[in-house]
């Protein structure tokens, strides 16, 4: 029982960051029809920025995370502006190849700048874990969970309530008609890619201090993000959020009760099963942003 509860708590915490990753990716795909293979590199970028500001420059840990998220947003905007804007109207395959190129370039750039040696980021949280009756959780993980959930709610609020968010949803549902309503599609695409990238960067900034930071950390992250998006149904944000938690649960329980060596395989096994039974994803009944 204790073990079960502990796995459950771990899964919920991990799931919150998976949801963050998946939402960013599905959001970009939903609105722009861009399969963003560089998503994992923004995750890596976020982690390295926390390392840079917190460890090397000695900035306050919380501030370093905030800076990493903001820089992730800016990097996303820069990628959209320099690469994707020129590919407007190109087919999905072309942008996919370009994003694979961006992935390779960014990862090798990280290797060049930071070397392949893994870095660790100390957190300012107490060593003593938070004890919740039968289970205990490290404070650093509680922090990750709280921030991740806050960011998911923030992203949801932007999309549902703000003028920009409404314009994003309109663009997602019907691009030509949105343009007829006076919506500047270029601005919407820029904001979409920046926001999605910011969420990926946030996930990296949050998980970097918990795990270790290295140039290839984005590879597994991007694969998992795709798995989450497929689980939730392409372009479905609620689906991606739920998909993130489902993936974390499967991984956590698979590792706990079956074999910890197969932790990462569990998730992909689940994807294969989902694709065999319901190829449109678990929540693709009404494809929508929001």
């Amino acid at each position, binding site marked *: 029982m204790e073990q079960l509860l502990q796995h459950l708590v771990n899964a919920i915490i991990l799931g919150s960051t998976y949801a963050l990753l998946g939402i960013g990716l599905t959001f970009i795909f939903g609105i722009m029809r861009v399969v963003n293979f560089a998503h994992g590199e923004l995750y890596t970028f976020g982690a390295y920025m926390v390392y840079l500001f917190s460890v090397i420059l000695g900035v306050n840990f919380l501030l370093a995370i905030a800076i990493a998220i903001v820089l992730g947003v800016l990097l996303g905007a820069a990628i959209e502006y320099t690469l994707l804007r020129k590919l407007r109207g190109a087919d999905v395959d072309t942008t996919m190849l370009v994003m694979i190129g961006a992935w390779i370039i960014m990862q090798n750039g990280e290797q060049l700048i930071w070397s392949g040696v893994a870095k660790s980021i100390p957190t300012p949280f107490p060593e003593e874990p938070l004890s919740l009756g039968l289970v205990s959780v490290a404070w650093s993980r509680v922090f990750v969970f709280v921030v991740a959930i806050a960011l998911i709610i923030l992203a949801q609020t932007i999309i549902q309530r703000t003028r920009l968010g409404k314009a994003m949803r309109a663009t997602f549902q019907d691009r030509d008609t949105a343009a*007829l309503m006076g919506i500047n599609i270029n601005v919407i695409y820029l904001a979409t890619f920046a926001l999605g990238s910011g969420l990926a960067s946030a996930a990296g900034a949050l998980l970097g201090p918990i795990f270790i930071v290295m140039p290839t950390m984005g590879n597994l992250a991007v694969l998992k993000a795709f798995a989450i998006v497929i689980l939730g149904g392409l372009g479905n944000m609620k689906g991606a959020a739920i998909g993130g938690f489902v993936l974390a649960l499967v991984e956590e329980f698979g590792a706990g009760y079956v074999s910890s060596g197969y932790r990462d395989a569990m998730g992909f096994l689940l994807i294969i099963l989902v694709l065999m039974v319901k190829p449109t994803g678990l929540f693709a009944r009404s494809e929508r942003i929001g």
Partner: protein
Amino acid sequence: MLEVENIECRYGKANVLHKVSVDVKQGELVTLIGANGAGKSSTLRAISGLLPPVSGRISFLGEDITNASPRRILEMGIAHCPEGRRIFPFMTVEENLEIGAYRRNDRKQIADDMDGVYHRFPVLGERRGQAAGTLSGGEQQMLAIGRALMSRPKLVIFDEPSLGLAPNNVQKTFDYIMEINRQGTTVLMVEQNAYAALEMCDRSFLLESGQIALHGRGEDLIRDQHVRRAYLGDEG
């Protein structure tokens, strides 16, 4: 008010419009008629900036808008109510109207205009919080028209407003468009129902294979032999 002069448009390599010229004067209700694929929708898309012409010129209120963005053209005062209604199905009725007023900043007047739409179509008011995709076809058409009016246009372009509607809704839609026109908004409309289009308009243009074949007053075209045979089903 609106002058379209000798425009040519292409989709890829295919020429869809060959030197099309159309003009609309302030306060008029002008229709474009013709068979499927004659270039009616393309003409409208060229005017609203979705399909910039490769040659020719379009001007509105004396200003050249040939290569202007859809946003700029909307700001100049042209609203486009697209074929098939194209409401945003997963957004609420109210959000659809808000998007219609996207380029405006005058909150107070936007709220007044929205109330105006709800007053004219109480059913939209009752369903303002409902996803627009759940409305009936007729209600969606009313929403699409209301949304186009939310930008306070000087000229409204309607593309096949009767398409896919039940007969009683078709009449309601035409009545509403004539009402908008009487209240001072200029109208340019594409309509497959040639008889209705010729009856309600001031002037009409007939498009055939991407060219203007005829134009004139509605009452004159309705008596034209060629129009009667080809578009009004007159056997004689």
